[in-house]
């Protein structure tokens, strides 16, 4: 039992950056925009959060700066695809490449700089409960934020009027425009929210998960977040499940490698979380009618009000 708590804690830690990024991208895609720049926005958020963290020592401020950086990169994307009607796929790919380069440049002087991890919550009494205490009451603020925001996203999309409008824009932008909703403005807000969430995911990586900066430290998590959204068929509950499944498998294969019981090349073990997450989500989401119900019909298509 005693050894369980650290395992659960590391699973949560491995899942949190994905959860941020995927929940943000879910909102973006529900509005009908495909932003493939998640990886770039995460890296931008990670490096800026790290720099602010080192320079100020203030964790909250650092996380906020990371979110702001993600949002700034998303704004660039929005100018291109919403303002100038550029192709969303190409622009998203460019944003990822830009984010990788920019973050490497900004972070040059900070490689190897130590940074104390974000403070963990400590509630006297509660946190001391064995196993459950550290899991529920001993995390840092960003972990709680990721879970609260996931719930908020689900509530927003399926219970609030604003969420209904957002989904209608993703489903049929021409009809939404004909009824009189500002399609471009709604999509802009969704893209900015997605950028902030990706930035927060990156900030969690560089402030808490591995408190350091290294080039391309997201290691493809932005792409996994994108895949999660699609394979979870745009349902917030399944995105949450997928993120935690991925976190758990990442950890399990690391343990397998370190124990060295099974003699499988480590490359295969490294592959398993990616493969298994996708397989599981595909299997639980194979109902074609449900996919149609949840998939935003207009995704990736350029919308022009007079077109």
């Amino acid at each position, binding site marked *: 039992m005693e050894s369980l708590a650290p395992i659960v804690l590391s699973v949560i830690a491995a899942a949190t950056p994905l959860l941020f990024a995927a929940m943000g991208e879910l909102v973006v895609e529900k509005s009908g925009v495909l932003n493939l720049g998640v990886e770039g926005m995460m890296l931008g958020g990670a490096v800026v959060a790290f720099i602010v963290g080192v320079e100020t020592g203030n964790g909250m401020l650092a996380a906020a700066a990371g979110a702001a950086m993600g949002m700034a990169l998303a704004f660039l994307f929005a100018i291109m695809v919403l303002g100038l009607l550029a192709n969303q796929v190409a622009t998203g790919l460019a944003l990822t490449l830009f984010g990788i380069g920019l973050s490497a440049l900004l972070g040059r002087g900070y490689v190897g700089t130590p940074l104390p991890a974000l403070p963990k919550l400590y509630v006297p009494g509660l946190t001391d409960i064995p196993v459950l205490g550290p899991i529920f009451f001993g995390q840092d603020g960003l972990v709680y934020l990721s879970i609260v925001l996931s719930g908020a996203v689900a509530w927003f999309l399926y*219970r*609030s*009027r604003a969420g*209904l*409008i957002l*989904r*209608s824009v993703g*489903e*049929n932008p*021409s*009809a*939404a*425009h*004909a*009824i*009189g*909703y500002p399609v471009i403005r709604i999509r802009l807000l969704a893209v900015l929210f997605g950028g902030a969430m990706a930035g927060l995911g990156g900030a969690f990586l560089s402030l808490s998960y591995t408190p350091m900066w290294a080039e391309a430290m997201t290691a493809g998590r932005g792409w996994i977040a994108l895949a999660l959204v699609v394979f979870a068929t745009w349902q917030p509950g399944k995105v949450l499940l997928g993120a935690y499944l991925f976190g758990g498998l990442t950890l399990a294969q690391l343990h397998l490698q370190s124990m060295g019981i099974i003699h499988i090349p480590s490359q295969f073990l490294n592959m398993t979380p990616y493969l298994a997450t996708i397989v599981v989500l595909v299997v639980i989401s194979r109902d*074609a*009618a449900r*996919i*149609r*119900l*949840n998939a935003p*019909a207009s995704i990736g298509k350029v919308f022009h009000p*007079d077109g």
Partner: protein
Amino acid sequence: MRDVTKRFPGCVANDHVSLDLERGEIHALLGENGAGKSTLVKILYGVQHADSGRILWEGEEVEIANPAAARTLGIGMVFQHFSLFETLSVADNVALALSRGTGRDPALVAEIKRLSNEYGLALDPDRIVYELSVGERQRVEIVRCLMQDPKLIIMDEPTSVLTPAEVDKLFDVLRRLKADGRTVLYISHKLQEIRDLCDRATILRGGKVVDSCDPSQETPNSLAAMMIGRSFDGPKIGKPVHTEDGDALLTVEGLSMEAASPFGTSLKNICLSVRPGEVLGIAGVAGNGQNTLLAALSGERIAQRDDWVRFEGKSIGRVGARGRRDMGIVFVPEERLGHGAVPDLALEENALLSGWGRWKLVRRGLISFSKTREKAEQVISAFGVVSAGSGAAARSLSGGNLQKFIIGREIMQDPKLLIAAQPTWGVDAGSAAAIQTALVDLARSGAGVIVVSQDLDELFTISDRVAVIFDGHLSESRPTHATSAEDVGLLMGGLFETPTEATPA
């Protein structure tokens, strides 16, 4: 409401158009495709903006900046191409058009139920729109519009997708609205309907108001003449040839096929046959399996068993579209831009794509462009296609002209069987008559023709026999001279026995 006047110089679509609507009337807006009807109502509803001109509402000049402003004034609209959100519930769709709440709001759900009862528009607020039939979807649009308590309701070609029984019901609703003192602006090119329903009509041609009249004092032909600006003759239909005892050209027996998309309709045990020299009409409300049937006939989708489809005695169920074209089966799809023609390619290139095999336009892997151009120009001149020449992009043609080109392209390939889907949908009266005449002429020259259409008038004008498709089942065909539009209308609602062992869906 009086004196709704609009003037827009400089705008091609509407040239100094003025229109007056009285309280409590059903006013028809008539015109061919591209006459500016849609543009005019979009301006009235605030979707587009006039370059100049004024709108007077209840005697006062108003600015309609967007649809929300139009709704505040009391103008509602039922769109031609439904503007519903398929994956949302009926109540959500209504909520989106109002300025408050979501589909989970109990007061809103109660209001939807009350209104739909009051006007006899049965609706379940919790259903998801994609499950609804076209007629039901239109009810959602109407209820959504009525929820805003509008004084003026704009309806853009509301009957083009309805069965005759549904049309009658819709007209009852519209007359009820009129009795409530509401005004209806009714856009259509179905002349008989306008005569039955409307109090006044304004006719647009080339973006200008050319005439106005009391439609009940006119004949369909005189209305059509006002629309197209010259005297109008219906399609010239040749005498049917005797085909009763001829061998069937195409036979389909026991064909079943899954729909390609989850919301499509699967085919169940389809049987039909066409003889050389006859036109077989297939009626039905959209979404009852027409798309799957057309794909199965054209070869775009291959049947499970080769002998389910036979052509001139040979089993061709597993032959693809290319192979069927080589045998002489040509296909005119419903969607002109994208399926029937590549929008950005020139007409001659579009002719090449469909006709290279039968016209032998390709020799040893090389395209003969001179021959291709010659063929395209022949089609253009033989079918009177108005275009900038064979080099014009397909996209640049009006719907009617492009359809004439596509039909002509297929007919001039000298087919043995032509399959056409909605050949005159959204095509103006003049082009429609030309297309219908060409289809009948093709049959009279000895080819078989299958026409899938929702337009019963059209099917009764051109076909020798008519069958009805409903929920993936096809009824037995009946000679058109021995049946009536009312009977076929009943069949379109599903009131028929399937030929063998009916399997309820």
